[in-house]
């Protein structure tokens, strides 16, 4: 109840704040600020209450039962807050409210802007309430399902909140733009504040995307650091459009006519955030993405919110278009303004192409047969654009604003370009476009540094552009330059793979039985590939072993063996069954209720090797979501047995016999080995991009 009431109060307070701000009188605006703080406090209360529910193991709440369990450690219980749709919308609302609190305290934003901001807050609250995390469970369970093993990763604690900070903060430049349009404010006074907030949101969104890429690199099954998955694309497009916003805003600070473009970019950046949320949350991409949420009813609600924001924004802009500053966008073709706008146009193209690609499943579904585009579409179309964009960055940074004074000549850049292409060639890249991209990356890097030394760009901008150039170079080296090879590896044997000595050392099972490692040595360095196991010993989530080095990473992905020496047998009560080593007889089974809400079956099995007889009690614990059975060692660990099923009348059981831990850990394992040249440059570049962006936000 506390949760639902808090959310209802958040909605009421937000709407009251909208009205107070809209009234515009000094007194109501002061009231509006208090109401904004109140809305933040109630959203905070709802969030704290959800955390309390999770930490108190309140499995009578559906959300807690679906994403948490008694066994989860504190960090993952905390992460369970945003593991599902419902909680992640609440997190978004909380961050939106926090930013609202800052705006209310700082009093930078006009009352009209605050009204729009709180209207967005009300819409977000409606989304949270439409799919509330506080709904009671339909049936009572003793323990929750727990967090998906794939998500039990330290990055889970970091990645979603950072992405949502990015999403939430992109609302602020939108409302600055809306406020300027609503009040008919002429001039560019609002630009610095909008730029400040946009840079913070842009930096966090970028950081979230990069962290997601790094996470996808260090688990198996998410397609590496970038897979053009719709979920990745749906964050990338707003990030690109936020980039357009920041850059046309810079032009508008000099050429007022460009303010129209700033408005457009601001509206689209936030509308695309909502659109991406709609695509990934509506279930439309269910058959097209490795990463989307299951189909839900909330899709329509988000679509409506998205439509309202986009249409209202565009309509407002249309109404006010005449009163916006007119004039020339650029004085000369050689001016930095012109080249920057050209670069922004390239970003528009890039966003449009990715938008079109990721929306294909939606559009085709509307007109008939669903279809998607293959990922090489994105590579083929964005690579030429990325090359052109790096060239415009180089040209723009070497020119001044206005008449386009040349800050420095381009000759040293040609040498850098050759060096970049050389690096690509050395990493094994042979196609023309990737080599060209590597070349222009280093040229852009050089141009940025030169421009910075001639005071053509500030510190934050310099760092961000250098980071971008390094990242794109690294993508060529580690992407196009990557090679892979897979083979069966015998324990203790060394193999020469792409000039690295790789030795498989065997498997290592952890005491708990919930994790195992495939251990390798790469050039003498020991690395381990973690596989998380379910309670019944099956693989739940796998990670590669990565040997990091300055030259690049060696990335080892083991494949679970097809024949692991395990065998299933059906035993009838009182009858003897045999395999190569032993004879088994099922004596009797005992069934009891357990506190998981299921049944526990204990089967007594007699085993003999011809000389002696041993008895083993095999236990199968049934829970609401299946059963778990721990293997039991027989004859001093020569084999292990596990109960996998029992008939209703308890006359027959099914057991699995497994080789000893020792034998299993020494099986040969097929391993896929890839080399990723200089991939650390990608992480370095990404950090620089975000650090530079946030640095530039400093006022």
């Amino acid at each position, binding site marked *: 109840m506390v949760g639902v009431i808090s959310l209802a109060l958040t909605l009421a307070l937000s709407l009251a704040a909208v009205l107070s701000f809209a009234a515009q009188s000094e007194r109501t605006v002061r009231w509006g600020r208090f109401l904004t703080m109140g809305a933040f406090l109630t959203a905070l209360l709802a969030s704290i209450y959800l955390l309390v529910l999770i930490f108190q193991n309140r499995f009578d709440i559906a959300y807690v039962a679906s994403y948490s369990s008694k066994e989860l450690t504190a960090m993952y219980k905390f992460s369970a807050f945003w593991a599902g749709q419902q909680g992640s919308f609440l997190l978004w609302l909380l961050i939106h409210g926090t930013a609202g609190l800052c705006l209310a305290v700082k009093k930078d934003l006009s009352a009209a802007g605050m009204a729009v901001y709180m209207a967005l807050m009300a819409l977000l609250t409606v989304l949270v309430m439409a799919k509330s995390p506080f709904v009671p469970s339909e049936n009572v369970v003793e323990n929750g399902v727990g967090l998906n093993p794939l998500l039990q990763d330290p990055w889970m604690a970091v990645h979603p909140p950072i992405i949502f900070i990015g999403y939430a903060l992109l609302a602020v430049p939108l409302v600055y733009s809306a406020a300027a349009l609503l009040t008919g404010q002429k001039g560019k006074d609002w630009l610095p504040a909008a730029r400040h907030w946009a840079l913070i949101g842009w930096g966090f969104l970028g950081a979230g995307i990069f962290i997601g890429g790094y996470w996808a690199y260090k688990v198996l*099954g998410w397609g590496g650091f970038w897979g053009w998955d719709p979920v990745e694309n749906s964050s990338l497009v707003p990030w690109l459009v936020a980039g357009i916003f920041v850059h046309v805003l810079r032009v508008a600070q000099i050429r007022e006519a460009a303010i129209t473009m700033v408005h457009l970019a601001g509206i689209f950046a936030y509308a695309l955030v909502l659109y991406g949320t709609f695509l990934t949350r509506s279930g439309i991409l269910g058959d097209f993405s490795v990463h989307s949420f299951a189909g839900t009813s909330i899709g329509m609600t988000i679509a409506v919110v998205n439509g309202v924001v986009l249409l209202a924004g565009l309509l407002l802009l249309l109404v006010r278009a005449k009163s916006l500053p007119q004039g020339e966008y650029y004085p000369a073709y050689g001016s930095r303004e012109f080249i920057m706008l050209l670069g922004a146009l390239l970003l528009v193209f890039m966003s449009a192409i990715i938008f079109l690609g990721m929306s294909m499943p939606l559009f085709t579904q509307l007109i008939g047969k669903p279809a998607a*585009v293959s990922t090489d579409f994105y590579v083929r179309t964005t690579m030429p654009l990325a090359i052109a964009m790096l060239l415009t960055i180089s040209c723009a940074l070497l020119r001044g604003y206005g008449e386009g004074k040349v800050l420095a000549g381009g000759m040293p850049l040609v040498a850098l370009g050759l060096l970049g292409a050389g690096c690509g060639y050395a990493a094994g890249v042979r196609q023309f476009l990737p080599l060209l991209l590597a070349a222009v990356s280093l040229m852009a890097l050089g141009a940025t540094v030169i421009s910075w030394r001639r005071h053509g760009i500030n510190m934050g901008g310099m760092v961000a552009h250098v980071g971008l150039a390094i990242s794109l170079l690294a993508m060529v080296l580690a992407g196009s330059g990557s090679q892979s090879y*897979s083979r069966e590896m015998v324990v203790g044997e060394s193999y020469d793979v792409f000039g690295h000595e790789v030795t498989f050392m065997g498997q290592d099972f952890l005491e708990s039985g919930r994790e195992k490692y495939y251990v390798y040595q790469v050039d003498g360095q020991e690395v381990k590939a973690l596989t998380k196991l379910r309670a019944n010993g099956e693989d739940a989530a796998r990670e590669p072993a990565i040997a990091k080095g300055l030259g690049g990473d060696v990335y080892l992905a083991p494949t679970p063996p097809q024949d692991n020496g395990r065998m299933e047998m059906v035993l009838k009560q009182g009858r003897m069954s045999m395999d190569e080593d032993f004879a088994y007889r099922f004596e009797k089974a005992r069934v009891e209720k357990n506190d998981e809400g299921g049944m526990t079956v204990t089967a007594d099995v007699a085993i003999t090797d011809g000389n002696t007889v041993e008895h083993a009690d095999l236990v199968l614990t049934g829970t609401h979501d299946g059963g778990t059975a721990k293997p039991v060692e027989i004859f001093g660990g020569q084999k292990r047995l596990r109960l996998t099923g029992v008939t209703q009348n308890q006359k027959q059981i099914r057991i699995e016999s497994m080789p000893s831990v020792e034998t299993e850990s020494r099986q040969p394992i097929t391993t896929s080995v890839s080399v990723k040249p200089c991939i650390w440059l990608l992480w370095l570049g990404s950090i620089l991009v975000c650090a530079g962006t946030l640095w530039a936000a400093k006022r």
Partner: protein
Amino acid sequence: MNRKVLLGVLLLAFVAYAGWSFMDAVTPYVGIAEAQKSTSNVQVKGLLAANAPAPHMEGDNFVFTLQDEDTGETMLVHYHGMKPDQFDEAHHIVAIGKYRDTAFEADKLLIKCPSKYEQQK
């Protein structure tokens, strides 16, 4: 003026190139019968066939049999890669690739658990 024309031509050329890439890269969703006839890349959705050899590795390929949920038709799939995570718990499997000779050569598999986030109850 000339520069504007040049710029326009370049942009148009790029739009044409993007359009052509786009048409080339569209992979429609089809059933098994249609996939076997098609000469271009398609996506096929199905279940792991129950009455077929167990999924296994053949060299660098992961081999399994896909069954159409509605018609019951089956098709051998060669996936160029390792057995994907959560393959055993898959609700549905989506294979993306092209049919050649006797088997569907898949470049990519999407494993549809109810969701990566929402576990099956």
